[in-house]
């Protein structure tokens, strides 16, 4: 016997506590079950890619800060690498090492935030988020020490980094690196065996492996499915090929696996930092590059493993001081594309967990 029920439409977002900004999910519900879902993006669109065509190459660096504002360093890095590739600039050793150190610190900061908000989306009452914030604060202090800004750092420059690190940076980062493994142990003990968290996240928002590949997911999303795809290994940039680190992968591709991958990546980042900080060479941290650089006519694509996935910049130069075309392959946006497949058939509660496990930043989705 079938009893008819009326499906009804509910908008989750744009002004919703857990859509991580102004993302909108328009779902058709049958009771609590989602039978259809539409994703609406664009509420935060600032046409960064168009604006960038009117600015010089150097002036564009602060724009990249504002895309994924939780990992400004990685964004800077990708953009500078693309311009360097276009103009054929070689970055000195010290600059490369500083870039790696900053990018990995940023990864820890971003993953702390991602894990914290993910558990918040699972319904914890702020506690894990606040605990995670404590570690993130220390990293942001390091950024402030180096470049004066905490969130939108604008630290990387074409040909190196903007400033050399201050004297108190190295002791502070060493202290942090001694502290972090203990803290990560604590978090793992707290979170990984939490019965409710496992019940809420395991088997929720599962992405089949072939879907993950065909949707070109990257970052923890694809690694959660068991595919060890990481730009740092697949297409090493900066000095990543000199360090010994592993790529954590999950098994089932569900939300819990993505959470596990992020937890493990915290450890791997600490491992990289522990190798990179003692090996930091002397010498110049930047090559002299004219402020309004004019790269030769051509195009270049550079990609980095940002905390959210493959962050790629495609720049076309017409020989002028501004890029002719500027395109960003934003990992948040592409990872978000599978959300519809994840939530249909799930309940409202599960859909929020799925969304939280993607770790999107609307600034990057909408650009």
């Amino acid at each position, binding site marked *: 016997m*079938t009893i*008819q*029920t*009326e*499906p*009804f*439409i509910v908008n989750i977002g744009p002004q919703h506590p857990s859509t991580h900004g102004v993302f909108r999910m328009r779902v058709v519900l049958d009771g609590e079950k989602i*039978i*259809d879902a539409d994703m609406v993006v664009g509420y935060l669109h600032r046409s960064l890619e168009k604006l960038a065509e009117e600015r010089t190459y150097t002036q564009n660096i602060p724009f990249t800060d504002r895309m994924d504002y939780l990992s400004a360093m990685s964004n800077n890095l990708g953009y500078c690498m693309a311009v360097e590739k276009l103009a054929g600039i070689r970055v000195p050793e010290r600059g490369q090492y500083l870039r790696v150190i900053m990018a990995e610190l940023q990864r820890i900061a971003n993953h702390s935030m991602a894990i914290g908000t993910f558990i918040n989306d699972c319904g914890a009452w702020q506690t894990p988020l606040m605990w995670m914030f404590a570690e993130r604060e220390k990293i942001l202090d390091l950024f402030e020490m180096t470049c004066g800004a905490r969130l939108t750092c604008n630290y990387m420059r074409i040909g190196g980094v903007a400033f050399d690190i201050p004297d108190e940076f190295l002791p502070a980062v060493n202290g942090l690196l001694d502290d972090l493994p203990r803290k990560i142990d604590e978090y793992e003990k707290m979170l990984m065996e939490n019965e409710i968290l496992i019940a809420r996240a395991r088997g929720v928002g599962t992405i089949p492996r072939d879907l993950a590949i065909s949707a070109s997911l990257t970052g923890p999303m694809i690694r959660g499915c068991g595919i060890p795809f990481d730009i740092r290994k697949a297409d090493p940039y900066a000095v990543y090929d000199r360090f010994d680190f592993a790529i954590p992968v999950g098994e089932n591709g569900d939300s819990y696996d993505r959470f596990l991958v992020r937890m493990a990546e915290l450890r791997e980042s600490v491992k990289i930092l522990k190798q990179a900080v003692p090996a930091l060479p002397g010498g110049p941290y930047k090559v002299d590059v004219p402020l309004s650089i004019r790269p030769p006519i051509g195009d270049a694509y550079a990609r980095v493993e940002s905390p959210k996935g493959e962050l790629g910049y495609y720049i076309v130069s017409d020989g002028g001081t501004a890029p002719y075309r500027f395109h960003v392959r934003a990992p948040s946006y592409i990872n978000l594309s599978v959300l519809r497949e994840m939530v249909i*058939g799930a309940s409202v509660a599960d859909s929020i967990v799925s969304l939280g496990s993607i770790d999107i930043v609307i600034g990057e989705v909408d650009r």
Partner: protein
Amino acid sequence: MSGVGPVSAFYVLAVLSIGSALMVMAARSIIHAVLFLVLFFVSLAAMFVLLSADFVAVAQLLVYAGAIGVLVVFAILLTPSREQRGMETKFVGPGLLAGAVVAGTVIFIAFNTNWPTASNDFPSTVDAIGQALLNRWALPFEIASVLLIAAMIGAIVIVGGRGVDLDPGAAGPSARLVRRER
């Protein structure tokens, strides 16, 4: 029943219960009707207190105001919304007839029963009910459990234990409804 307090309480409750019972019929919104019904159940429970039946009062509160009220609410929200609004029905005539019969019976019984009245210091009735259930009414007590289980099995069978599929014909606001097994 004696004393100013209980008597005045009786009149207050009588007005409340009859008024809310009338409002159940008069209310335009069906949810309002349910809320008045719950109010009626609650005032009836208070009436039982005045009749020295404290256990029955609490049971009334628990079963009728709590359980039946919720059941009726769910039943209403399960009805298609277009059917929630019909004020006219072809059952007016039979309904009035049935109501008149029930009312007549109730009035007849009310005038022909020697009602016990509450004393201000009545003993708890729970113990007496319990003794009765243990001795004289042991068999009905057991049969009641079987009856309840029968009701439960009936409910499960009617709703269909294996669950309810969304009828694809019930395409509502969304043009592309996706049917998917979980």
